[in-house]
């Protein structure tokens, strides 16, 4: 049964006068009704959460060890074996940790082009994950709150961020929270903070592309004209709390998105029908992310590869489609039985894609001033790490001590916070204000990392119930 719109004349006049008053004097009752659809514009502060699925080997990426110091002969003493020599089948892998010129950060051999951006990132080493179960560690890092059993507790960090920031935004992105191949939870915010979950780029295209069932263009125009006509006074009255206005704004946004033909920016494998400027922009994307289009010889699938996902992230942020993008950037890392080379290859695909994404953001100008990377925080994580010793099957098992990378806005750059132990890579005990080892210090958990990300963005982090790592935040 629909809501009855018939009211007495007296009731109607009272409400109408209330509407006029609140509209004239800036009251909130009809604010939503008066809102106009905003043109798409990039968010002032964007966030990317990049997940490496399966549990990564931190010796190969963010917490390397010198193989000359941690030798096979000293295993009983150190309980650590870098195993870089096992990558020698592929000469593109260095057999020593990488330290680019000017870098305070040493990287493992699998980080690829990601290491080029040492001057824009902080690495956190020695994080105690408190778990070696995939779902638990993954959900722990996604939410910053230790799960109940294996069930996530609370909202994902991306949802927290959108939940807090979206109501204050003037130019609201059409899909503020995008989750690509990754779980997302919302336990406390209204629906606007829910992520649009997509498992492939096709799902996103469905949102941005014209309807698959076409109407005649003239008939479509008639429908648009009719929707644009002034609503009746009764309809205004019905919408006194703004839901209808919100829906009408959303429909205007749909038109804005469709008129901007945003879907064509995400179709990396085709420039058919694109205006020259769009085609040129997409060609640059194809080049940057080495996407295989036609016979260009590049290795990366333009629809489903780490590189294509990174390109999707960049496009979503730069075109103002999203503010937070969570993405499963690489997988296949649960190598209990795999070789070191398998782990390194699977990792490197993700790191190279991230390196290209950061290059893209560094070289793109943000309308608010500076580059896109100046307006973006990228958190790179996995559910846990792998044992510092190689098992009998030639692989590595689950290990509790983890690392993560935070790139861009909000954290110190060219900086390492914390450390893992030199015996068995135990979790670090540090002074939270400096990140330096201190036997009187404390361990740090994913809660601390996420609280730091929230705090550095000026957001309420009280739900984490811990203080941020002050030594990691920019400007401290």
């Amino acid at each position, binding site marked *: 049964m629909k809501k009855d719109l018939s009211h007495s004349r007296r*009731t109607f006049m009272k409400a109408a006068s209330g509407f006029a008053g609140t509209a004239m004097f800036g009251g909130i009752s009809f604010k939503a009704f008066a809102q106009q659809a905003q043109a798409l514009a990039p968010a002032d502060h964007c966030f990317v959460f990049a997940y490496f699925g399966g549990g990564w080997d931190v010796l190969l990426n963010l917490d390397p060890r010198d193989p000359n110091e941690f030798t096979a002969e000293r295993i009983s003493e150190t309980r650590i074996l870098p195993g870089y020599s096992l990558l020698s089948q592929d000469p593109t892998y260095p057999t020593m940790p990488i330290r680019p010129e000017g870098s305070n950060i040493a990287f493992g051999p699998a980080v690829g082009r990601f290491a080029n951006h040492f001057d824009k990132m902080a690495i956190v080493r020695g994080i105690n994950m408190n778990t070696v179960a995939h779902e638990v560690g993954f959900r722990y890092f996604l939410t910053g709150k230790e799960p109940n059993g294996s069930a996530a507790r609370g909202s994902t960090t991306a949802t927290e961020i959108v939940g807090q920031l979206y109501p204050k935004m003037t130019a609201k992105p059409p899909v503020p929270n995008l989750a690509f191949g990754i779980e997302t939870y919302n336990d406390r915010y209204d629906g606007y903070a*829910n992520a649009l979950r997509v498992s492939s780029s096709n799902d996103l295209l469905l949102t941005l592309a014209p309807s698959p069932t076409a109407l005649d263009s003239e008939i479509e125009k008639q429908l648009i004209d009719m929707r644009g006509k002034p609503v009746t006074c009764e309809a205004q009255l019905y919408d*006194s709390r703004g839901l*209808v206005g919100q829906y009408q704004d*959303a*429909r205007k946004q749909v038109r804005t998105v469709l008129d901007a033909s945003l879907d064509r920016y995400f179709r990396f494998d085709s420039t058919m029908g694109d205006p020259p400027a769009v085609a040129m922009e997409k060609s640059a994307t194809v080049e940057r992310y080495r996407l295989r289009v036609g016979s260009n010889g590049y290795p990366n699938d333009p629809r489903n590869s780490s590189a294509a996902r990174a390109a999707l992230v960049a496009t979503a942020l730069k075109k103002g489609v999203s503010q937070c993008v969570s993405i499963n950037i690489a997988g296949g890392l649960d190598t209990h039985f795999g070789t070191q080379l398998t782990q390194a290859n699977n990792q490197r695909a993700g790191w190279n894609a991230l390196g290209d994404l950061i290059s893209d953001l560094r070289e793109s100008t943000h309308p608010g001033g500076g580059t896109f990377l100046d307006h973006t925080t990228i958190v790179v994580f996995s559910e846990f790490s792998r044992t510092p010793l190689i098992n009998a099957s030639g692989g590595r098992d689950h290990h509790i001590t983890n690392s993560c990378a935070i790139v861009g806005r909000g954290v110190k750059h060219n900086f390492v916070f914390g450390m893992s132990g030199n015996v068995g890579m135990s979790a670090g005990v540090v002074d939270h204000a400096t990140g330096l080892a201190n036997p009187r210090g404390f361990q740090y958990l994913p809660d601390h990392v996420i609280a730091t990300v929230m705090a550095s963005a000026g957001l309420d982090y009280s739900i984490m119930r811990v203080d941020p790592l002050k030594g990691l935040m920019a400007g401290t």
Partner: protein
Amino acid sequence: MKTLKTSLVAVALVLAACSSKPVEKPEMAGSLETIDMGNHPPMVKLADPETNQGHVGRKPRRITVAQLRESILTTTGRQWSQINNLAASLGQADYALTVSESTEANLVFAKFLEDGAREVCLATANADLNNATAANRVLFPNVTVMNRDFTTMTDAQVQDNLQYLAVRFWGQRFGDDEVGAWTQTFRAIATRAKAVNQPAQAWGAMCVAFMTDPRFITY
């Protein structure tokens, strides 16, 4: 003792004879007037706008995905093929990863509803056009269709059908001023549909308009 038994049998026979008489109808006709119930609690009236921050009644709500699924089926007799695939994006909670149903009327909902309305409405309009029994049609059951041309309908016929659709989709009739604007739009659409030989798009497009109207998705 024997006398007592005989008396009881006699009384029983007398009662049986009484009960077989036809029941007399009450002289007073039924009434729809409300009856004063004495201590019944008072009905809650709509709040006075002056004491309700200018609002009348409670806040409208967007329908859930389950309600949308039923509404589409009830109003058109067919289901949108993608509604289950897109349920999560439309706001449906799975109570594993998302524990609250989103009833935001946001961009994704508006976009997918438009897609769904077009699929369902054009299919319904096409089926109606091929249905020889007028009464079985969904979108224009009382319209005499001549050569699949809706431009010959009079204003009164158009308005009658629009009012029928308004009740079908929204559960309420148009106001007089609004039905005029919709009639005008229908006339333009019907003319165009005839010109491009797409007769299903005449009432099909109007069905899309009804299904994507705020009155369809709120209550």
